Structures are given as structure tokens and as C-alpha cells.
């Protein structure tokens, strides 16, 4: 039981770190894709969405080269910390961040798109800068969709297996997440232990999705087509 708790704790730590990365990055990308026009916008969209279309092991393998001795992240890490990031929990967190980013960007994009741009233009016209407009007009109107996006990204980060196994291994106490531990227990024939952790995953997933759907029900987007707003 003890090791169950520590495995869940490590998974939560990795997923929180990944979410802390995808939240600002996802918001920036979503805002660029929804509010801005620029050359290469199509490319950005494809690159950010790519992890959704690739097998997670491919994502993990690509990341492995970046964080190993031949990659720029690995070399930077070696000069600062003395070792590469491969097979560390940070590599696992980066893998989780990359695979959850497309989901986060899409969720944030939908939330931002539900905010009337005329309100933002009005605020800018009254003298507010970009950041202030974003924080005081856009975000308060979009916040339910944003929280839903964070939840989706978080639970996706918790579930990542293929990329994590490749870039961080399955080292108990250091990089063994809930999915990796379930896999090991299934492989070892330890069915009771595997079911325990599987149950934890199901419970976490149900809670996250329930809150996610509830939030989206109450957001401005859900009123489209049902209210009289458009018929003035």
C-alpha cells in the first residue's frame, strides 16, 4: 500500500509540473491561433497538434534525443547539472507536457473563441494594454473553459505511458508513474496490485471529466442556439 501512495504522489508531481508548463504555453499558443493572423499560423497549428496524431512512443523517442547527450536540452542540462535529463522525472514531466499540450490548446482556443472580440477591442480603445485586457476582460469571460482545459491536460498528463516509458524508463521511486506501475504489475502477474492502481486511475479520470463537463455546461459557449441573444 505504501508504494501505491508514493507511486500516485510521483504521478501527481509529474502531472502538476507538466500542467504548470502547458498552462502558460497553451494559453499563448491558443491566443495566437484564435486572435492573430500571421504567416506560418497553419504550421504552428500542425506542429502543436502533432502529438495527437503520433504514437506516444514516437513523441518519447524524439524527446529522448533532445534530452540525451546529443540533444540541446541534454547538453544544456549537462553543463548546468552535470547529467542529462534522460531517465529523470523531469523528462517524464516534459513528455507528459508535450502529449497534453494539443488538448490544452484546443480547449483554451474554444474558450477564447467564445469571448466576443468586440469587448476586447472596446477595452483597448479605452486605453488598456494587451495584457490588462487579457487579464480583466478575456480571462474572466473564458475562465470556465480555461479551467476545463487545465483539467483535461492534467488528467492526460497523469495517464501518459508510451512517451514516459521511452524517455524516462520505468524506475521505481524515480520515474515509475501510475500507468507504468500498472504495466509492470500486469507483466509480473500481480493482478490485485494492478487493479488497485487501475481503480485509482478510473476514479481520477471520472472526477476530472465530470468537473470538466460541468464547467463547460455553465460556460457562455453552451448558450449558443438556445438563448435569444442573437435575435436583436
Amino acid at each position, binding site marked *: 500500500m505504501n508504494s501505491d501512495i508514493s507511486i500516485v504522489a510521483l504521478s501527481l508531481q509529474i502531472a502538476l509540473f507538466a500542467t*504548470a508548463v502547458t*498552462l502558460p504555453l497553451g494559453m499563448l499558443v491558443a491566443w495566437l491561433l484564435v486572435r492573430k493572423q500571421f504567416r506560418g499560423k497553419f504550421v504552428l497549428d500542425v506542429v502543436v497538434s502533432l502529438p495527437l496524431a503520433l504514437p506516444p512512443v514516437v513523441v518519447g523517442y524524439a524527446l529522448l534525443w533532445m534530452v540525451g547527450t546529443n540533444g540541446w536540452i541534454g547538453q544544456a542540462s549537462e553543463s548546468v547539472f552535470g547529467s542529462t535529463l534522460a*531517465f529523470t522525472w523531469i523528462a517524464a514531466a516534459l513528455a507528459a507536457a508535450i502529449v497534453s499540450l494539443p488538448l490544452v490548446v484546443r480547449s483554451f482556443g474554444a474558450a477564447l473563441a467564445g469571448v466576443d472580440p468586440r469587448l476586447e477591442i472596446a477595452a483597448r480603445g479605452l486605453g488598456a494594454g494587451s495584457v490588462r485586457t487579457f487579464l480583466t476582460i478575456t480571462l*474572466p469571460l473564458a475562465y470556465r473553459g480555461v479551467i476545463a482545459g487545465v483539467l483535461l491536460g492534467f488528467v492526460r498528463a497523469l495517464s501518459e505511458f508510451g512517451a514516459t516509458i521511452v524517455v524516462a524508463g520505468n*524506475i*521505481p521511486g524515480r520515474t515509475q508513474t501510475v500507468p507504468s506501475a500498472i504495466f509492470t504489475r500486469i507483466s509480473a502477474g500481480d493482478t490485485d496490485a494492478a487493479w488497485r492502481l487501475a481503480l485509482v486511475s478510473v476514479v481520477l479520470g471520472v472526477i476530472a471529466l465530470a468537473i470538466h463537463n460541468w464547467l463547460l455546461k455553465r460556460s457562455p459557449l453552451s448558450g449558443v442556439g438556445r438563448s435569444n441573444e442573437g435575435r436583436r
Partner: protein
Amino acid sequence: MLTRRSIQIVLTLLCVTFIASCGGNADKDVPLIFAAASLADVLAESAEIYEKETGKRVEFNFGGSITLANQIAKLDAPVDGVFFVGELPELLLGDLVVPVPNGRIGLVNTLVVIAKENAGNVRTVEDLAGSDSRIAIGDPVLAPVGRFAKQALESASVWDEIKNDLIFTADVRAALAAVETGNSTYGIVYRTDAMGSDSVSIVSEIYDGYSPVVYAGRTLADARNALAAKNYFDFISESKDVQNVFESAGFTVGFSGP
């Protein structure tokens, strides 16, 4: 309600989590040792004895020795010691490992064919050819036990006939589990794994036809906690209690040296 206050609270929580999680999990002086899957139980027990007598801890990662050796040799896994079996991991690691000093404990194992309690008519390796049943072995690409099994099956001239009935697993414990759960009728595992399991029985001992199954503990030359790993290996080489653990599990114990 999204107030300035709530944004502040959320951001603070995120920062605190971020900083707290940067503590990392690798304790100082606790060596990380990658080891063959078949050593899982005995090394865990040896670590308990080590901690009881010296107060020091060891951490392990068990799996197919070839898989793990590749992670160290090709992918820079940050490991301090290894306890692998067979020649190939040693070749893969090359001069990443320090030469084995004299007096270092080594283990020897043998292969057996296993089946669940009430199995069929197999009494020797050759019998597997006519059995028309699934046979679980480690993947020869990932685990030495699979290579040894393949050698044994080739020496008995049955490999070509049964190779389509083979189930490859990532390591020996997964092969054992395949037979324990009934997903495979037969399996080829180490004698020690069969002895450690309650729900399978040995239907045939395989004494020859494959390379010697020898385990050796080595430290990594450039590792952060190489000294801690060396201390652990020195301890288990000298401790009678640990040697008893190995022998009770079915390993043959020997020592390197002139």
C-alpha cells in the same frame, strides 16, 4: 468568480507546487542499481539486510538485462551499479563498468521448462515440439533468458517447429506470469523463478545446450554514487546472511578471483 484574489491564490499554489517538486527524488548516496528481473526478490531481501546492518539504502530497477544495459549504454540512464546476467549486457556496457575486483560475489543459474500444476505430456525439451501449445520465453532481443532459451531450443533441434507457438515477454518474470495466469501452457524460465512460484511446476530441467548463466555485480565507472554501489557489492560479497538468501532461492554462489 474570477477575482484578482483567486488568480493570485492559484498562481501561488502553482509556484509552490513547482518549487516543492523541484526537490527531486534521488537521495544523496543512495545508489541506483539496474538488475536482472530474476534477481528481484533476492536483491530486495539483500537490501533489507544491508540497511539493517549498515543503515544504508539501495534502490533497484529490475527488468530484462539487455533492455536495461541498452538504457545505460545508449541512452545515458543515470545508474550507479548493475547486476546483470549473460555476456551481451557486458558487451553492451564495455568499459562503462569497472573491472570486477577479486572476491566479488557471482551467481549461477540454470534453465527449466515449467507448466501449471496439471500439465500435458512434456517431459523433456524435445517433447515441446509435439505439444502444439503456447510456450512463453523472454524476448531474446530484450532479455538474456530468452537468448538462453532460444539456444537450448536450437540445440534440441525444435526451434523451427515451435517458434510460431512462442510468446515473447519483456523479461523472465513476465514469462513466468504468463504461465501462472494460464495464458501460456509452458514456459522456459530460470530454475530460481520456478522455485519461487507456488503455482507452476518444473516439468523438465535443461542442463546444457546454452551458454553459462552467470550474474555479476559491477559498478559504473563515471557514476555519481559509484562508491555507494561498490560498498553495497562489497557488503553482499562478505555477508553470510545474503549468501544464504541467494542459495535458498536456488542460485549457485561463487566468487571472482585468482
